[in-house]
């Protein structure tokens, strides 16, 4: 059985980037991709890539970011979390609240300001509440929207809400030494509960309507989407680059050694004197925070978020991407997420031509999930290292 020996470890005396050439490669390719899309975009370049495609590519970068977080928690630390998309969604909700509130407030002030008497603050806030919550038959601003008008506050929530939920949930789960498939089920239950909770109208997040119109950025309402889409594309590319560097650094040293050891035999790690629960909690929480940030960048590009996004199936897809891309290597997760999600939008978005076999017509929107399922089974059985494993054949290891 071939073993993958990382040459880049804290116990050897080499600088981080020199011993991790894949990080340099990744950064270079990400930079080239970003420049390429910018040059071809409608907003800043030749206009060969539609604004819609720019948004899809930007969203894909966010999915790549949550995929590397998933790879760290699952591929490196061995915790098969089926709840990381919940953190992604919470990040989206946190930023979505500000986007929706601030935009509605601007519109209300404009329309009320046309009258002879300037509106009072109370009138504005009531009108905003009526506008946002009319759809769920309410005109009261729920408590959790108290600071929705403040961008710094909601940005803090992007980090704090997923982080604290992961911290509390993880502390309870890891402390009771729930592991393996039981932990997966527990994380899935958390995700399902959260999604069902958000579906309720009285949760205060507009029930199944979710938050919408998120592509309109308050303060830049007159900036064309062609330009805004590029802002978010750049921000997503930057976040992915920064996240990649952070996680590559985290897993490269002794910390990476310890979490891989926890994945392989956590009891043994305990007898080495490491507090396994503390490590798991650290990894679970930091990856949840990164997932939240990825979600906060994703949903303004998607334009809408609703509780269905948080449903357990999304987190299962995330695990499938990482498995197909290759667990235990960060670029594998990126490849898996990008490949599968782009293929999915191509096949289900009507981009792919349906195939007429004469006796049967293959309609991709119906067959995509079957294809994905077969692909997952095939990868698990025949290519346990995933697509990223192909690089092992390309790069011959020096003796």
């Amino acid at each position: 059985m071939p073993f993958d020996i990382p040459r880049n470890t804290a116990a050897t005396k080499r600088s981080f980037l020199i011993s991790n050439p894949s990080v340099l490669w990744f950064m270079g390719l990400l930079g080239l991709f970003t420049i390429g899309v910018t040059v071809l975009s409608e907003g800043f370049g030749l206009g060969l890539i539609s604004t819609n495609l720019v948004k899809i590519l930007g969203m894909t970068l966010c999915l790549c970011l949550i995929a590397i977080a998933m790879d760290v928690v699952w591929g490196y630390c061995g915790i098969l979390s089926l709840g990381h998309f919940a953190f992604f969604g919470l990040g989206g909700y946190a930023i979505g609240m500000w986007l929706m509130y601030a935009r509605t407030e601007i519109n209300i002030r404009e329309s009320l300001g046309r009258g002879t008497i300037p509106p009072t603050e109370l009138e504005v806030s009531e009108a905003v509440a009526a506008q946002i919550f009319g759809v769920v038959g309410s005109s009261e601003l729920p408590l959790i929207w108290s600071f929705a008008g403040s961008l710094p506050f909601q940005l803090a929530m992007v980090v704090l809400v997923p982080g604290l939920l992961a911290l509390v949930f993880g502390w309870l789960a890891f402390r009771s030494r729930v592991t393996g498939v039981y932990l997966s089920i527990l994380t899935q239950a958390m995700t399902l509960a959260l999604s069902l909770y958000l579906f309720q109208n009285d949760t205060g997040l507009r029930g199944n309507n979710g938050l919408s119109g998120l592509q309109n950025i308050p303060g830049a309402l007159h900036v064309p989407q062609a330009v805004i889409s590029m802002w978010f594309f750049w921000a997503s590319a930057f976040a992915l680059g920064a996240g990649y560097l952070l996680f590559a650094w985290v897993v490269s040293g002794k910390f990476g050694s310890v979490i891989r050891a926890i994945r392989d035999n956590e009891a043994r790690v305990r007898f080495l004197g490491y507090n396994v629960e503390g490590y798991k909690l650290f990894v679970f929480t930091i990856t949840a925070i990164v997932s939240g940030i990825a979600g906060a960048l994703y949903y303004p590009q998607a334009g809408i978020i609703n509780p269905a996004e948080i449903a357990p199936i999304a987190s299962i897809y995330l695990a499938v991407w990482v498995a197909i891309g290759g667990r235990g290597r960060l670029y594998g997760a990126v490849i898996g997420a990008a490949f599968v999600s782009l293929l999915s939008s191509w096949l289900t978005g009507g981009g792919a031509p349906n195939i007429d076999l004469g006796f049967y017509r293959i309609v991709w929107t119906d067959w995509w999930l079957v294809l994905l399922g077969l692909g997952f089974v095939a990868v698990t059985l025949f290519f346990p290292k995933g697509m990223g494993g192909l690089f092992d054949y390309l790069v011959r290891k020096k003796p």
Partner: protein
Amino acid sequence: MSTLLEVSGVSVTFDGFRAINNLSIAIGEPELRAVIGPNGAGKTTFMDIVTGKTKPDEGRVIWGERSVNLLKYSESQIAKMGIGRKFQKPTVFEDQSVRDNLAMALANKRGPFSVLVWRATDRDRARIEELAEEVGLSDRLDDSAGILSHGQKQWLEIGMLLAQDPRLLLVDEPAAGMTPAEREHTTDLLKRAARTRAVMVIEHDMEFIRRLECRVTVLHEGAVLAEGSLDHVTKNQQVIDVYLGR
């Protein structure tokens, strides 16, 4: 030689089966001690209790000069206090290099944040080289632990134990599956380690124990049956009946 670990009156029951029955055993520092006994005598359960994996129903486990009650602590805390354990089946981290396995075991800070920023100092590197030399793996440092032979894995694990710099080493069947030459090397390793610390070796193999030249404790049905030199215990009629004469 002062008493380092004292186990007294410990009992533990699994589903009605009394694995440990009013067991009392003590070890000094430095000392080399062999523990023998037939299958099911409670040898491994005894180690589980000392290392915090299993909590006994009754009894006391007292550690060190300050008489710390070990039963109150978790596995990782007990490991940090200075009790190292080698499992029966060699358990090294197979997809990591020998160097990384040893680096993880080095007696440095164990918290996530200090480990995150840890980079090997020259002293750490020298210590790793020294340990590899000690267990005979100097030329395998950058190999993956997974490709080592069975005996080499056992040594790596002993090396990891020594890296932790424990005061008490609990070693479960170190010679299992080893060639005679490897056994000899292992005996030397343990005897050297026992010059400065307490080492407790659980073993089935009488020849191996004879070479250790140390005090022997015989366990049977979860309690101590006899204790003394190997010649002394092998002459004990009860020991012959339950173990040797089978």
